């Protein structure tokens, strides 16, 4: 625990020092990034040890806040979430130190470093907090600090808009959490987590947690803030938010699940449904985007959906008394939390490299970047393959575990639990396939082919620190993928903590799952080796011959230009056409006319249907309803005093009478 407190101290010191030295050129960057990196290095050791089975530690200090206590507890579940938090924060700080440097002189750099330190500290506190008051305070701090990070470029109207959407969404979620904790506390007379016990209204509590934490995690339809906030934020901030901050929603859901006693089967059904909707809607919307970071944001929705699906499968297994399904489902979901942190962090950092090198994130303005930005391209390829669930990378391992659990459930379970399992299998397959299309598109359009614009042509590779950050995460993806079986085996403590199953059955199930992972992993590694072999053979064969490049066959048209390549929307068109009912892509086409056509244009735009069909009408109706309250706000001091006096008087009369 001491090491974790020191790590929090580093974050605090980094935050304050970056403000103190605000006016000293490079200083805020150095102390701000230094605070995050040192704090993370300091905290990662105890977190890893506890996640791997060291005994839980706790610290409790009395506190003047009503019902609050400074109760921190590091158990396996908390430690499992702390590891990616520390890794991603450190890497993001390393990246941000160089990324933000170009703003020096134009914008104050002390605030983003201050808030990054605060964000890191608050995420750590959220995960460690074992008292509802402390938890909610850390939760709010996390929301506010990330809001200020998102609105870093607040001179842009779109960024401000994104910030507001994020703030509103996170507060709607927080409202549900407040109700949840008040209900739990009322029942048990204390707001300490270990005093919460299974209560009568567990179903209501579960729904409250699902909505409250789902808003942070980005479950559909509460995901609408993600595609706004992630593109608006600086890239290292998007990486932190998408890779770990939204995972605190998953953490909260799991923590509440452990407190609510034995789960009901319908919770699993609900999570499966949420997961499938989020996964499919997320990947479809990702496919239809034109902005690289927006695409990645929607892909986060998809991956959070996969995590929810794993949790749902696990809960169904738990309630049906099938330890293997439960263990494999939860292990898949939890491992996907870690994996998604690695590859989504990596992809956002690479997207930052692209944006920095070309000054645009518009897919159709990019192209051919692999030649000018080879390192970024290579790491992006690793991330894209991992996120598509390709063996032998890490995304495959976690998705495979969920498949494994679902297959087991579909084969062995009774009819009522077989239905969601079959749905999970087919949904996961659909999500995986669409993810492959989506990331083939992203990688292909951005890095392959010819540069579509001058900007893309003049792209410059990112600096050393930014590339190093990417390499660290890419290495993480490869390592977790290669040693997938050992990683799965070592997840015993956290799975025990979540499921409450005896350690023998957890160990057995994990060993069984790990064996399957190892077998399929070997096959995947073999395929990769074969590909490498073919590539090597090609290189050897071509070594002694002359290789020339020429224009492709252009069907008789003599002057093809780079703009005649496949665009993002044309690549995605077969899929978007198939799902046009769900996507509602708006297109306008003015085709070429006559013998000598003057001009032609095509335009397609996919709005988030949840945004345009649910939230916009809802908030418009709300603001119309609220307008009736307008007359109360006259800006007259006297009236305000009257309101206060009247309220006090009414309260007094109410109390007396």
């Amino acid at each position: 625990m001491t090491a974790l407190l020191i790590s929090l101290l580093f974050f605090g010191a980094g935050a304050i020092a970056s403000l103190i030295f605000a006016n000293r050129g490079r200083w805020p960057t150095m102390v701000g990034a230094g605070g995050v990196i040192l704090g993370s290095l300091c905290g990662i050791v105890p977190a890893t040890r506890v996640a791997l089975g060291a005994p839980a530690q706790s610290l409790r200090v009395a506190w003047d806040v009503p019902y609050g206590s400074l109760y921190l507890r590091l158990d396996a579940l908390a430690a499992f979430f702390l590891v990616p938090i520390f890794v991603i924060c450190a890497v993001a700080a390393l990246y941000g130190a160089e990324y933000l440097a170009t703003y020096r002189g134009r914008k104050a750099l002390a605030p983003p470093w201050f808030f990054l330190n605060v964000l890191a500290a608050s995420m750590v506190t959220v995960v460690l907090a074992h008292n509802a008051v402390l938890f909610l305070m850390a939760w709010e701090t996390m929301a506010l600090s990330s809001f200020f990070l998102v609105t870093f470029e607040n001179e842009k109207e779109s960024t401000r808009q994104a910030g507001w959407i994020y703030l509103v969404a996170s507060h709607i979620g927080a409202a549900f959490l407040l109700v949840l904790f008040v209900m739990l506390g009322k029942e048990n007379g204390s707001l300490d987590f270990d005093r919460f016990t299974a209560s009568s209204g567990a179903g209501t509590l579960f729904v409250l947690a699902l909505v409250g934490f789902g808003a942070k995690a980005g479950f559909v339809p509460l995901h609408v803030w993600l595609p706004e906030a992630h593109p608006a934020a600086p890239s290292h901030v998007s990486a932190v938010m998408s890779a770990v901050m939204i995972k605190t929603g998953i953490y909260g859901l799991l923590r509440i699940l452990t407190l609510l006693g034995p789960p009901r089967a319908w919770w699993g059904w609900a999570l499966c449904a949420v997961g499938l909707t989020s996964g499919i809607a997320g990947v479809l919307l990702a496919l239809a985007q034109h902005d690289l970071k927006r695409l990645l944001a929607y892909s986060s929705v998809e991956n959070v959906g996969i995590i929810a699906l794993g949790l749902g499968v696990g809960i169904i297994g738990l309630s049906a008394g099938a330890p293997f399904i439960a263990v494999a489902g939860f292990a898949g979901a939890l491992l996907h939390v870690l994996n998604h942190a690695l590859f989504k962090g990596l992809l956002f950092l690479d997207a930052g490299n692209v944006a920095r090198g070309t000054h645009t994130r518009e897919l159709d303005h990019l192209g051919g970047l692999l030649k000018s930005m080879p390192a970024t391209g290579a790491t992006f390829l690793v991330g894209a393959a991992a996120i598509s669930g390709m063996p032998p990378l890490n995304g495959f391992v976690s998705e495979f575990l969920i498949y494994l659990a679902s297959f087991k459930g579909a084969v062995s379970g009774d009819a009522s639990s077989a239905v969601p399992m079959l749905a999970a299998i087919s949904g996961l397959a659909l999500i995986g396939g669409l993810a492959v299309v989506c990331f083939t598109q992203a990688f292909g359009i951005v890095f392959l082919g010819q540069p579509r614009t001058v900007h893309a042509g003049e792209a410059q590779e990112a600096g050393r620190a930014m590339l190093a950050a990417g390499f660290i995460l890419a290495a993480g993806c490869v390592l977790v993928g290669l040693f997938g079986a050992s990683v799965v085996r070592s997840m015993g403590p956290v799975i025990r903590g979540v499921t409450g199953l005896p350690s023998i059955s957890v160990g057995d199930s994990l060993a069984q799952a790990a064996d399957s992972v190892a077998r399929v992993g070997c096959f995947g590694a073999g395929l990769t080796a074969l590909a490498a072999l073919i590539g090597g053979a090609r290189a050897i064969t071509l070594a002694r011959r002359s290789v020339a490049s020429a224009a492709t066959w252009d069907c008789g048209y003599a002057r093809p230009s780079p703009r005649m390549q496949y665009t993002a929307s044309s690549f995605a068109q077969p899929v978007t056409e198939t799902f046009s009912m769900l996507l509602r892509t708006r297109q306008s086409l003015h085709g070429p006319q006559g013998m000598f056509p003057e001009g032609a244009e095509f335009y397609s735009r996919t709005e988030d249907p949840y945004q345009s069909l649910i939230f916009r009408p809802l908030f418009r109706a709300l603001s119309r309803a609220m307008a009736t309250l307008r007359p109360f706000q006259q800006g007259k001091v006297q009236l305000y005093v009257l309101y206060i006096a009247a309220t006090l008087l009414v309260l007094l009369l109410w109390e007396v009478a």
Partner: protein
Amino acid sequence: MSETINWILVLLVLTGFMLLGSSRLAACIRLIAIQGMLLGILALRMQDGQWSAAGALLPLISAVVKGVLLPWLLMRAMREADTVREIEPFISYNLSIIAGAAGLALSLWLGRQLELPNRPPSPLLVPAAFFTSLVGMIVIVSRRKAIAQVLGYLALENGVYAFGAAVAPRLPVLVELGILLDVLVGVFVMGIAIFHISREFNHIDIDKLEALTDRL
């Protein structure tokens, strides 16, 4: 003894009504001064024979501050701001007096409903204290001039003071002094603010400061 207290309370209520009904700011300031003096005497009478140095001194200090010092400050502010009378209040004077009468009825009813830890020396004490506070509220809400707002605030404070005398006759010295200092500084600051506002905007009408709000 109870006779004197009752007389003081009746006078307190009457000054409250006069405060609601008069338009001349100088008269209002004088009324507040009288209220401050009355409260000083009231607190002295509440000592109930058990004299102590602090018990005698505090009401005297309070009477001097509220009856002399603050009125003097306000008079000066009034002269500097060059406003003699309140013109066009939001609620007409007649209506304020009617509202005050309703407030008095409410206070009397409340006085009977409210359960206090120790019985006040006069049944009129709680209603009179409430009424004075209500008068303060009405003045704050209904007048335009900033000085009138300050006067309303002082009346409110007087009501609270009287109520305090009823509920806890022997507050610690430090608390009493603290409250007094609070009021003094409050009025001082408001006086300065009024002076600056009037110099800056050529008027001290609160409702014309609307432009400073963030209303959309």
